[in-house]
């Protein structure tokens, strides 16, 4: 079964393993992989993990939907809220959240506003982002773009929409970012984390089918590869079975 593991399935499993029982968290905007990760964690080891903070609680969709902004993707959820309650959750924070953008940089900052030019005279205008608060009011967040290239992993983003570690510990402290910030960067190629001292991104493990050199070539900054880089632990049979049978029966993660 493992031979056919897709990059998105590998991402889901890595993320799911990092979510703990009893936590409160939400999936963010690009929801396919995060929602699958949360659902997998709830099925396997975190039945008391609450999905909340984005105006719905504990959705039970019959399959994965690309957007959670779709009543069908909620299936039979437990409760609905509105933006007023989201305002409160944004201040109180969650256990975890997920983000991705047009550009991600070496300190885990994310850009969704513009590439090139300036905000009001952009070369390329991006979508912007709705909620900027969960990235630092929550205990931690994950960066999980479904593309990993030298174009979207750049040394410095053109605009910080979602602050990661800014330019490191001092800048983070000055800005009042007191929580962990981005913990892991999980892409179709690899898993990155951040150096505890400098808060710069570094390669942690590579998924099956990728080499550290591949990943470095597709990244626009130095990934601090020193010595052997482990392979990402592939999905177990149990993880893959639950993922495919109960969470993603339509195979959205393999499309």
């Amino acid at each position, binding site marked *: 079964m493992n031979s056919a593991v897709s990059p998105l399935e590998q991402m889901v499993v890595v993320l799911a393993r990092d979510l703990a029982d*009893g936590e*409160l968290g939400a999936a963010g905007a690009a929801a396919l992989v995060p929602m699958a990760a949360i659902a997998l964690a709830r099925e396997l*080891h975190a*039945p*008391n993990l609450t999905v*909340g903070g984005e105006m719905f609680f*504990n959705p039970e969709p019959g399959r994965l939907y690309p957007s959670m902004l779709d009543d069908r993707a909620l299936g039979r*959820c437990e*409760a609905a809220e509105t933006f007023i309650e989201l305002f409160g959750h944004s*201040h109180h924070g969650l256990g975890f959240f997920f983000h991705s953008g047009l550009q991600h940089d070496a300190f885990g900052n994310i850009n969704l506003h513009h590439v090139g030019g300036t905000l009001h005279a952009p070369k390329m205008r991006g979508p912007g982002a709705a909620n900027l608060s969960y990235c630092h009011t929550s205990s931690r967040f994950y960066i999980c773009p479904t593309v990993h290239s030298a174009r979207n992993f750049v040394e410095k983003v053109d605009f910080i929409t979602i602050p990661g570690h800014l330019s490191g510990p001092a800048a983070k402290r000055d800005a009042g970012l007191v929580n962990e910030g981005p913990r892991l960067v999980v892409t179709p190629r690899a898993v990155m984390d951040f150096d505890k001292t400098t808060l710069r991104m570094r390669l942690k493990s590579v998924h099956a089918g990728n080499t550290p050199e591949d990943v470095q070539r597709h990244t626009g900054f130095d990934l601090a590869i020193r010595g052997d880089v482990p392979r990402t632990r592939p999905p177990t049979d149990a993880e893959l079975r639950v993922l495919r049978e109960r969470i993603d029966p339509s195979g959205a993660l393999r499309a």
Partner: protein
Amino acid sequence: MEVASPTMDGQAKPTRCSKVTSLQDAARLARGALEERPELCLGGLFKQGRPVALVRGLLAAGADGLHVYSSPGAGYDIDLMIAAGAVAQVFIPGVTLENRLCPNFRRAVEAGQVTAHALDALTVVGGLMASAHGVPFQPIDALRGSDVLKHNPLLREIDCPFSGRHIHAVGPIRPRVTFLHAQEADRWGNLRHLSTMVYADQLMARASDMVIASVDRIVPEEVVLDDPSRVTVPSHYVDAVVEVPFGAHPTASFPNYAMDEEHIDAYADLGDAARAGDAAGLNAYIARHVTGPESQGDYIEAVGGSAHFARLEAEARNG
């Protein structure tokens, strides 16, 4: 209430924890939390949807020195808590049985035994809003001319950074424990108010450290999942839920049962007698209804048994 510790390998898989507990355990949980910080908040309003069984449970478990909040109007329950000697300060703008004054509240305040702060609805609601929204204060711009403004301990004058005008602000009111009463919940603690009016229950749930709810009945989780828009207080905000038949008595739990006006009136008569110097009846009332009953079944019998409650159910149906 305990959350099983995480296991990453899926071997010793924990199961989802039910939040259903007993009235006694809920009362003990609340008492422990209130010993840390004595700020208790009560849901409902006046004679509707008040968590009276939880209040009786807390009084039976022993509580004193409480600072009691509520939606802006309360009557029987706060008066009973004062009668039982559990209250130090009252942060409720309106305290009345509506058709008559609250006898023990009046007596205790007049005797200087309880501090009843002069407050208003917007201060209390605004303070709960600040807490629910997670912001350090809520601006208020609708209070003028009342002597309440001279005494209100929660309010400050601030300069509006936008208009430059003097306005008011209230800091977050964050109850240590909130008691709510709803008609239904599932075992995960998702509450469903079936009453038309829900008052400040949702706001309090979002504003509080700990929320304990009594419900008329626990329903299968499918009932919740079939109609998520009907959930008034999501499980996330709820720490414990107790199924208590007639748990709001003598207040109402519409559409299931009406308020017991006669019971409240008889209680108030005993309170008035105590105020006039004869506390025997009031003491007997407390022994019979608060400290005496070992269960809600005992309480129901003490009040008048199932025939009595059938009448309140009929009154709720027939208006």
